[in-house]
């Protein structure tokens, strides 16, 4: 458990992909079997264990620490599991710390009461980082700082195996993956029990990176990109999986879609939830499907999942990827047929004769933008230039600067993050944070302005007089009950600072509501 906790702790502060691969490799080198298999399963998002409530950990700590000291600590730390991990008193006798296998096996097999009994002994045996990882693992809040795909890539690198070969067999194996480790140590490659495999997604290049004059629109099929997320739907031998663009297995969140998919093979599409009116639901609702352990009947009934399909990679065992899109689209249409299907449809093609039409459509359209696919192109992983994304131009709004976070190393340098807000009646309501990307001069001017207009400080964050107008661009606005404004901006960025604009000219919340 200690090695695993140290790895997760370290990954959480390590930004570089290469460094993460090395750290995971070092863990696989050092940790014994089957611990390392379980550790890999956590990283790859393949571990399925029932969860304890964080409140259970709170009850344990209140038996051991003064209530007032707990309250002061919790207020400072914020996170309950972390507070308990840090506060846990050192026992008079240190028991042997648990292994990750101990923890995973107990969590899978034992009834909750017995698991709680074990938990106390485990917390006694571990250090603060180990207790933190343990509580996060058991309460389902562990963030590993590595995507599932990166974890698989790290395994492949460590085992000196082809990444694609690992991806092809991974999803038919179960943790702690004994067959994969046998393979890694020079043994036989595991049998593939079915055709479940994640294939590399074909990606679109931004239109802005390309020269329009060199493109002939007549060579492209055009459709709308979805409001939801890109997904790969794979079905083989009675097993169905849904993978996100990031390579995560997100099947669990979409039982309705899985039940509706009557296709053997691999499809590419945009995943979203539909309201009773048949329009796409806000992204926040989709996020719930992605993060909840179980999807309630109510969620399934009120906002059903829907996949808008736009490509096909495999038809049964037949690899269609080398064929031109023209042929793949025809195969997709032939399978789907004319009659509507629940939870699925085909992305309709949009007639676009010239660039003026394209620019008008993408500015008016409700979704992210338009996707252009060259009719003659095969399906190839990654960006090839054969698919093009014509994004909707960003929206913009005038906000007021509310808070600025100063850089960690102090000194007169621009803030690392700012919080902006808009008027709601006579009050300001924060919209969200953005990282300022300013010229050196603007940065200096902003730094000085914050010094001159600073109010109270909260650690590194300083509240400022609500007087500076910043023009913020963003891609879309969505309802979000978690935010005080009741909505959130997607990809907010500072376009310009309006040094002389009066504060009262900043926009009002109603303007944003109108843009939803």
């Amino acid at each position, binding site marked *: 458990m200690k090695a695993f906790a140290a790895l997760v702790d*370290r990954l*959480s*502060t*390590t*930004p570089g992909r290469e*460094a993460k691969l*090395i*750290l995971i490799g*070092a863990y696989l080198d050092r940790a014994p079997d089957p611990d390392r298999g379980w550790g890999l399963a956590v990283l790859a998002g393949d571990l399925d264990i029932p969860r304890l409530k964080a409140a259970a950990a709170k009850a344990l700590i209140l038996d051991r*620490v*003064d209530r*007032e*000291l707990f309250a*002061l*600590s919790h207020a*400072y*730390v*914020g*996170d309950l599991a*972390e*507070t308990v991990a*840090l*506060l846990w008193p050192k026992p008079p006798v240190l028991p042997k710390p648990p292994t990750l296998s101990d923890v995973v096996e107990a969590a899978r097999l034992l009834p909750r009461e017995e698991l709680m009994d074990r938990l106390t002994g485990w917390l006694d045996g571990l*250090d*603060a980082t180990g207790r933190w990882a343990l509580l996060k693992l058991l309460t389902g809040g562990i963030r590993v700082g590595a995507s599932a795909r990166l974890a698989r890539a790290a395994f492949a690198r460590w085992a000196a195996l082809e990444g694609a070969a690992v991806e092809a067999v991974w999803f038919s194996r179960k943790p702690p993956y004994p067959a994969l480790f046998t393979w890694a140590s020079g043994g036989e490659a595991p049998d593939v029990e079915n055709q479940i495999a994640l294939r590399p997604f074909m990606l679109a290049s931004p239109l802005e990176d390309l020269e329009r004059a060199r493109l002939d629109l007549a060579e492209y099929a055009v459709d709308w990109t979805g409001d939801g997320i890109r997904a790969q739907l794979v079905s083989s031998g009675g097993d169905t999986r849904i993978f996100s663009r990031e390579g995560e297995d997100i099947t669990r969140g979409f039982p309705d879609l899985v039940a509706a998919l009557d296709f053997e093979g691999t499809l590419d599409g945009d995943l979203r939830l539909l309201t009773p009116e048949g329009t796409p639901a806000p992204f926040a609702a989709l996020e719930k499907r992605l993060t909840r352990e179980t999807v309630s009947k109510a969620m399934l009934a009120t906002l059903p999942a829907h996949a808008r399909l736009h490509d096909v990679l495999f038809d049964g065992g037949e690899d269609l990827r080398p064929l031109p899109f023209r042929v793949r689209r025809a195969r997709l249409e032939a399978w789907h047929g004319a009659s509507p299907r629940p939870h699925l449809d085909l992305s309709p093609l949009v007639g676009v004769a010239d660039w003026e039409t394209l620019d008008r459509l993408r500015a008016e359209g409700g979704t992210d933008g338009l996707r252009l696919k060259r009719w003659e192109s095969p399906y190839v992983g990654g960006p090839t230039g054969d698919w093009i994304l014509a994004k909707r131009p960003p929206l913009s709004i005038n906000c007021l600067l509310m808070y600025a976070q100063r850089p*960690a*190393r*102090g*000194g007169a*340098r621009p803030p*690392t993050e700012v919080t902006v807000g808009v008027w709601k009646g006579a009050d300001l309501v924060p919209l969200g944070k953005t990282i300022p990307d300013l010229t050196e001069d603007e940065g200096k001017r902003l730094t000085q302005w914050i010094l001159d207009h600073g109010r109270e*400080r*909260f*650690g*590194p964050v300083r509240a400022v007089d609500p007087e500076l107008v910043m023009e913020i661009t963003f891609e879309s606005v969505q309802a979000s009950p978690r935010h005080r404004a009741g909505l959130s901006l997607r990809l907010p960025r500072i376009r310009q600072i309006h040094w002389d604009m009066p504060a009262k000219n900043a926009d009002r919340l109603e303007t944003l509501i109108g843009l939803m």
Partner: protein
Amino acid sequence: MRADPEHWLRVTPRGLYCPVGDFYVDPTRAVDRAVITHGHADHARRGHGAVLATRETLAIMDARLGSVQGAQPLDPGETVSLGGVTVSLHPAGHVLGSAQARLEYRGARVVVSGDFKRRTDPTCAPFEVVPCDVFVTEATFALPVFRHPDPATEMAKVLDSLALFPGRTLLLGAYSLGKAQRLIALARAAGYDAPIYVHGAVAKICALYERHGVALGDLHPVPEGNNRLAGSLVVHPPGTLGEDGPHRFADPLVAMASGWLRVRGQGWGRRADVELPLIISDHADWDELVATLADVGAPRIWITHGREDALVRQATLMGLEAKALSLIGRDEGKEDAP
């Protein structure tokens, strides 16, 4: 009759003042006579008329602030009388030369801890428990979530990283007085005997430590200009490399040592630009603070800078009388060194 320290020791805008002896302890502005506990910038300021401190602290002040006028060195345990108040200095274990100030007047004993820690530190004398009636304590990490791990296991992370990433320069940010020398000593104790590259401000204090008998091994100045130093350890005060500084090195791996890094979440927690956080501090953690309250046996606890509410609560649970002094001029948000 004992003179209640409330009557001969008080908080003023310039810091803790003893009107009977007419001196300040660690004043925040220039005063006529100051007792200085240690050499960090927010305790040792320039311009005092006379300064009473340990020999090491005076040497540090000389090196950092220029020649100290009216310097009066005091050996550990040696006493001096200032207007009837008996003053002595006792090791605090914080940095080289750091001391607690013991003040005695008409039978009442006050110990001002300054900054202190209880952990073993080969670069300075260990904290001495000095029994007293009033213990004036720091409270930088006075919240029970702050319990520093064993510094040796933290330093092992540095050596492990150097081995795992031979192509990267490990930039270890640490305050130039105290923390930097302690980290170098910890690396040496862990068996790291390669040259360590030190920034100018660090080098100056390292030389001073070595003159006082603290061995730090093979130290080199950081070369000017673009140098890669792949696989090497560089110790520098945070912020001194400048905006482009890190780019001078080979794929730099930024490490930082601070007690604040214990908490990942809010405020002064984990920093986005630190890849390898090390929880190493020269301040007492919660367990050390609580143990010290018990050890010194003072029925009254005065709390200077830090978060006093939790420590007041803890002292009350221990049957002690505690209050916060609200000294100004100590920036608790600042890195825990000064």
